[in-house]
């Protein structure tokens, strides 16, 4: 099976367009955007890691169906990227990842640019209904996830459902290919694929951020899975989570859930017979196997390293 192509060309094009777009905005907006993006940006990516699925999906689908011209698909990918920028900037203000509240208005510029990118080529009402609905779902999903994480009790299932809603905007680029072409059945599969991968990815993200979220008063999905029934206000929760990461059996359960989500994503998208999507999921599966191995080695080193100390 072919290796998944990395989006090196796509990355260059998005980098160029982001810089050009920010340069085109008025000075005060530009200052807010530049101040933020210079600290958040990573320029050309040095590592050959797998890019997020939502940058690939429009191109995979365009290759499958009667494709719009490549420049049109580029506009859809750009519009998709602007939606990401819009939500990410606002979310960083909410999470106090940035100290500049002016950023919410700079973010609005990316939303308008996203709309412009899609409007250049799509008039289809079903697409625009989806565009609006996706923005709503993402906005409500962010606040819903935040509220669920601040609760002491509550299972992981509704939180995972909220995570899928948070990622609703990442389907818009694919909707621009599928809905005007009346490929609704295919798009329903794309939606399920995206939802499962969004949850799988967020669960790993939660593992990375588990202690940071806790210090913000939130038990994310990883925390809830590792220490069920323990709320963010419990003074022992941090210690319990660390112990569960090192010595508990629930970390394996969490990684099993991630694996199951990846399998479900594969089952959703497989009937569309997109070779690049298949290759992408094989790579994702390899990455998860790698995570399992490295997690295991870190656990052994922690337990026996401590014992030897």
């Amino acid at each position, binding site marked *: 099976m072919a290796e998944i192509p990395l989006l090196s060309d796509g990355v260059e094009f998005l980098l160029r367009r982001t810089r050009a777009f920010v340069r085109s905005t008025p000075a005060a907006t530009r200052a807010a955007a530049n101040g933020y993006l210079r600290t*958040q940006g990573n320029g050309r990516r040095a590592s050959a890691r797998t890019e997020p699925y939502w940058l690939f999906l429009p191109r995979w689908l365009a290759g499958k169906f009667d494709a719009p011209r490549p420049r049109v698909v580029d506009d859809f990918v750009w519009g998709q990227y602007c939606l990401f920028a819009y939500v990410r900037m606002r979310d960083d203000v909410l999470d106090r990842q940035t100290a500049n509240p002016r950023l919410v208005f700079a973010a609005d510029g990316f939303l308008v640019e996203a709309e412009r990118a899609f409007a250049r080529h799509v008039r289809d009402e079903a697409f625009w209904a989806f565009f609006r609905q996706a923005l709503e779902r993402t906005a409500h999903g962010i606040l819903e996830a935040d509220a669920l994480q601040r609760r002491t009790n509550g299972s992981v299932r509704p939180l995972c459902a909220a995570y899928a809603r948070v990622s609703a905007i990442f389907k818009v680029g694919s909707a621009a290919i599928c809905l005007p072409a009346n490929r609704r059945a295919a798009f329903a599969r794309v939606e399920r694929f995206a939802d499962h991968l969004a949850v799988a990815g967020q669960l790993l993200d939660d593992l*990375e951020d588990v202690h940071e979220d806790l210090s913000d008063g939130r038990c994310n999905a990883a925390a809830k899975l590792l220490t069920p029934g323990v709320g963010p206000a419990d003074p022992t929760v941090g210690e319990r989570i660390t112990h569960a990461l090192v*010595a508990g059996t629930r970390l394996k359960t969490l990684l099993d859930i991630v694996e199951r989500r990846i399998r479900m994503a594969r089952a959703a998208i497989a009937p569309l017979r997109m070779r690049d999507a298949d290759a992408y999921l094989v790579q994702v599966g390899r990455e998860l196997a*790698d995570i399992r191995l490295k997690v295991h080695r870190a656990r052994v080193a922690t337990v026996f390293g401590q*014992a030897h100390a």
Partner: protein
Amino acid sequence: MANGPRTVTLNEVAERANSDPDFFEAVVAHFTEPNRGLAPFEMRLSEADEIRLKAGLTAIKYIDIDFQQFGGWGRWPRFLY
């Protein structure tokens, strides 16, 4: 007469745990849930090594797993800028 469990060193246990996740979990369970143990593996630690391992397990404050290096397909990426 049947032989009893073989006494092993902490290093031996660590080496096997490194290559066998199930074994690692059994070792950890042995020291956190008294009803499970290393008996299926026909091993035991010396009393001193048991004390060291128990002390190690209770002293754990931190684990260094960098999940950030993974999940490019799931994490929201950093900006291209």
